[in-house]
């Protein structure tokens, strides 16, 4: 994630008019990058990109091929496929995290991006929860209940844990959606090793 609060979005479409429209829909909220074919999409991609809006049908390297290379290279990025028609196949199977059907409204586009960023956030929150639990377990070792109650660091940890638990439970309802569930696992799979707390 970059300094921009909204995250960084890479728009990939061979139709420059489409790219211009999406740019207009998204500017001001997200950092935006653009590519007009599959090769340059891969050039534009780095660890700062959070979401890719990927046109499925492009001359040269197709959206599907770009996706395969993104997954092969292990980028921690969520990918929404953009198609002209409703996909007649299982997007969960294909490795996409979500899809959009053209023409896309401003609201749809932004909601899809925000949902993808939210499930990234869920993966980050679970990781944070794990780190805090490890810290709490370490503090408990060899300490009496009284010592722990007197320890302000432990009390602080306990309150952060219960806040985080409430956040995680509130986010968990979305997991019954298959594509959200799988995309969250993908975010866990692809999270960088250096992100370990």
């Amino acid at each position: 994630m970059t300094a921009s609060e909204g995250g960084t979005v890479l728009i990939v479409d061979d139709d420059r008019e489409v790219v211009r429209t999406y740019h207009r829909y998204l500017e001001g909220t997200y950092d935006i990058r653009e590519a007009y074919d599959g090769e340059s999409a891969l050039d534009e991609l780095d660890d700062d990109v959070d979401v890719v809006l990927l046109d499925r049908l492009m001359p040269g390297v197709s959206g599907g091929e770009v996706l395969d290379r993104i997954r092969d290279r292990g980028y921690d990025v969520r990918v929404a496929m953009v198609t002209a028609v409703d996909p007649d196949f299982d997007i969960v199977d294909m490795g996409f995290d979500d899809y959009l059907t053209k023409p896309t409204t401003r609201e749809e586009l932004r909601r899809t991006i925000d949902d993808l960023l939210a499930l990234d956030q869920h993966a980050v929150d679970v990781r944070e929860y794990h780190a805090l639990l490890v810290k709490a377990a370490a503090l408990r070792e060899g300490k009496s209940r009284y010592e722990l109650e007197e320890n302000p660091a432990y009390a602080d940890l306990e309150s952060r844990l219960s806040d985080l638990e409430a956040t995680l439970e509130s986010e968990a309802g979305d997991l019954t959606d298959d594509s959200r569930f799988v995309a969250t696992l993908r975010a866990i799979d692809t999270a960088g090793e250096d992100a370990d707390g």
Partner: protein
Amino acid sequence: MAEGDARADRYPLADAIPVDLDDFGPGMNVLVSGPPMSGKRQLVFDLLSPEGAAPDPIVVMTTDDPASRIQTAFEDRGVRFDPEVFRVVDATGAPGDSDSAIHRVSSPADLTGMGVAFTQAVDGMGTPDRLRFGFVSISTLLQYVDAERAFSFLHVLSRRTSAAGYLGVYSIDPTTHEDRFVNVVTSIFDAAIEIRERDGDRELRVRGLSGVKPEWTAFPH
């Protein structure tokens, strides 16, 4: 759970464990913990298909025993190996024929693949209202992914089944991990059933449930 008709949503245990406990609530996640050869796998299977209880749809996700052994174990218990009501997600990487009841994943390191296979298994069974989900085992998973990823995966998977009202039962061998990891991973679960052996006798206790005292009880086999 005070409403009378809500009990229908619960998961009866029949006599699977020698403890005064009739059932688990919908969405519960239970950890079965015990050393090697202590009968914990048997207990996980007992909780998925308790003798004498009305059968529920079952999905077993395995990282160690291949699907064929899971299948044999359930057939021995009289469970029909029918993809309408019983499926296995085999993440052992063991070769085998494709089968509508067996969803294969190349390795326990492929957490996304295991998630995809889970959704396909549940979708293939018509997304039932009730389902008992088993996971064997957390210890094997830990040989393929780091503790943080394993924790995150188990957290997300267990919340997924909870949100659907399913019962989740997971096994772990605590003797192969640091105490700290076992403590941390246990916090994912609503209850833990611990098995131990003392002087050749097997004992069991249930922790984490209000109304059930965590006392060691003989658990003969």
